[in-house]
Structures are given as structure tokens and as C-alpha cells.
């Protein structure tokens, strides 16, 4: 399944500036592997070494956090969209 993935600003240097890319996979883990094939380095930015999502990065399936679904095993269907949303801290700066 080809899924649209929204890339946050801090990761866009890995996607040649693209804010939206497509990736193929039946679940979130497969999408991340496919993203890593096309955009090397992306996986380590969002996942720990054991493959779990880093604790300051969330992935949303449509508007729902995958941690409250099946996490990396969350299955995808036609027209689903993933968004990677990392914590950002700037305010006073």
C-alpha cells in the first residue's frame, strides 16, 4: 500500500526538502523501513536502536497517535496518511 507521509521541518533535509513523501507498506514499521531505503538516516532520527519510536517523536495515523493503536504494528488502509510530529521547544528564543 502506498501511503502519504508528512515530514516535519527538522527531518526535511533528509527528504531533499519535501514536506510530503510516499512510502509503501502494510503497517507503520514497514513504512519506516521503506522511508529508510529512500531517505537513509531517517529511521535513526525517529526510532531507538531497538526499532521503537523515540519518546519525543510521535507518529499519527490520520489524527490518532499510533501509540494508542497498535504502535508500529498499526495496519494501514487505502488513503490513510501518516504524520511524524516531533516535540519542539522554542518559544522565548
Amino acid at each position, binding site marked *: 500500500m502506498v501511503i502519504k507521509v508528512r515530514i*516535519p*521541518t*527538522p527531518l526535511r533535509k533528509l527528504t531533499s526538502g519535501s*514536506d510530503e513523501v510516499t512510502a509503501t507498506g502494510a503497517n507503520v514499521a514497514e513504512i519506516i523501513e521503506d522511508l529508510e531505503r529512500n531517505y537513509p538516516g531517517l529511521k535513526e*532520527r525517529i526510532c531507538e536502536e531497538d526499532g521503537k519510536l*523515540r*519518546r*519525543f517523536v*510521535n507518529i*499519527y495515523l490520520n*489524527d*490518532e*497517535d499510533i*501509540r*494508542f493503536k497498535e504502535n508500529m504494528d498499526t495496519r494501514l488502509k487505502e488513503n490513510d496518511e501518516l*504524520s511524524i*510530529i*516531533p*516535540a*519542539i*521547544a*522554542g*518559544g*522565548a*528564543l
Partner: protein
Amino acid sequence: MDFNEEQIERYSRHIILPEVGGRGQAKLLKSRVFVLGAGGLGSPALLYLAAAGVGTIGMADGDCVDLSNLQRQVIHNTDRIGVPKVHSAKETIGKLNPDVKVVPFHGRLTEENIRETVREYDVVLDGSDNFPTRFLMNDACFFEEKPLVSGSMFRFDGQVSVFHPAKGFPCYRCLYPEPPPKGLVPSCQEAGVLGALAGVIGVLQAVEAIKLVLGIGDPLEGHLMVFDALKMTFRKVRVRKDPECALCGESPTITTLKAYKEEACELRPATCEK
């Protein structure tokens, strides 16, 4: 509460709104709102809170106004360079609306003083510039049962949410359990930020704070608003209360305030002249 003639005129565009009215305006004038950071987000938030007639505005910031701040920190001006930001902000607010009592704190909030500081307020806005402070403020607001209007920005992206675990809603740690390790996510000046983005996000925080004071509409509790200035898109995603949250979950492991070590920010001015 009786308004004087000047107040009736000053707040007339609020008072004629059925959702606000005289009663709502009186609530605003009696309300106490705390703003952490008188910088990029704090500047627009403070201006609109003051203009709205929030009766008491507390603020904390340890920095002084720097020329490089003025690209976005609109509560300050060129004459105030070198002046503590909280004093500069107080002066601007005094000229904007004499109804507002300003309580400035020039210094950093720490695990020693943050709880007693926020205890005095109805609503807290976080416009800080680093993760350790964000987590500290989240935890303090949890223990003091205060609603926390959180705003943050990075380059062209902004995020806004309202954390209110005392009302059964998630806290910041439900969204992001731990701060990132140093160096993984840029949170210092080196990343840059679109000045006007601070206006968008800071004003959204003011809107949410005013709604919370008035008790109207649907604040962003349980949601995260993500703004992309380049695409001009707002996306709202769900924030769930995490039953495993170390702070507000079913078996909390965080039971007292604990500060994370602040990442060094090389471009931050080391001293405050005045």
C-alpha cells in the same frame, strides 16, 4: 463588579459579544494568568492578555532584551536593549492597559520556586525556549492542578495545546514522555525562527487562555494544533491521556519535581547588563 466609564468603552467590543458580556469581562478583570517567558511567544500573548483586561499577569524571564530579539519579540523595543525582559514587558503593558497589575520575576523558575509561583494563578502559559523548563512547568502545573497552555515553535512550525490533567485531560508527558537527548533536536537560536510565526502561536495561546478564563468554547485540551507557516496549514491531532504516563498515569513514578539539566545554548547571552 462595576465598570467605570473608561472600562465600559475600553472593553466595549468584548462586552457586546454575547459569549463574553459584562460578566465575562468582569471575570477577565478578576483573573490571574501567568506567562513563562517574555520572549517570542510571551510577547504577543502578554500584549493580548493585557489588552483583554486580564487583571493580574505574572511573568518570569531571566534574560535581557537583545537586538536579535526584536525581529519577533514585539513587546520590547530598541530603547530597551539591555533591560530585563520582564521590566520592559511591564512598561509596555502599563502603557497599553493601566487596569492590569503586572507581577514580574526577573530570573529562572526552578524546582524550588515554580510551584509556589504558579499556585497564585488561574491559567499558565508556557512560552519557554527549552525542554527542561517545559517538563518542569508541566510537572508543576500537574501538582498545582493548573491548566497549562503550551506553545512552541521551530523555524516555520508551531505547536499549541492545553494540558489539564486535573480535569481528566492529558499532560505534556502523555504527549511526549521524555525530553530529547542533547543535540538530537535543535532547540536553540541556531535553528532560526520566522518572527511572525511567534505572533501566530503566541496569540493562539492567548486565545486559549482567555477561553479558559471565560469558560467558553472548546479549548485544545486533548488535542495538539500543528501549524506549518510555509504551507499555511493547521492540523489538529488527538492527544490521549496515557494510562502509563509517569506523572499523571495510573501508577505514577514522578511524585515530586525533578529538573532536567538544561542544554547549553551557546548563542544565549551569558549575562544581563542591568
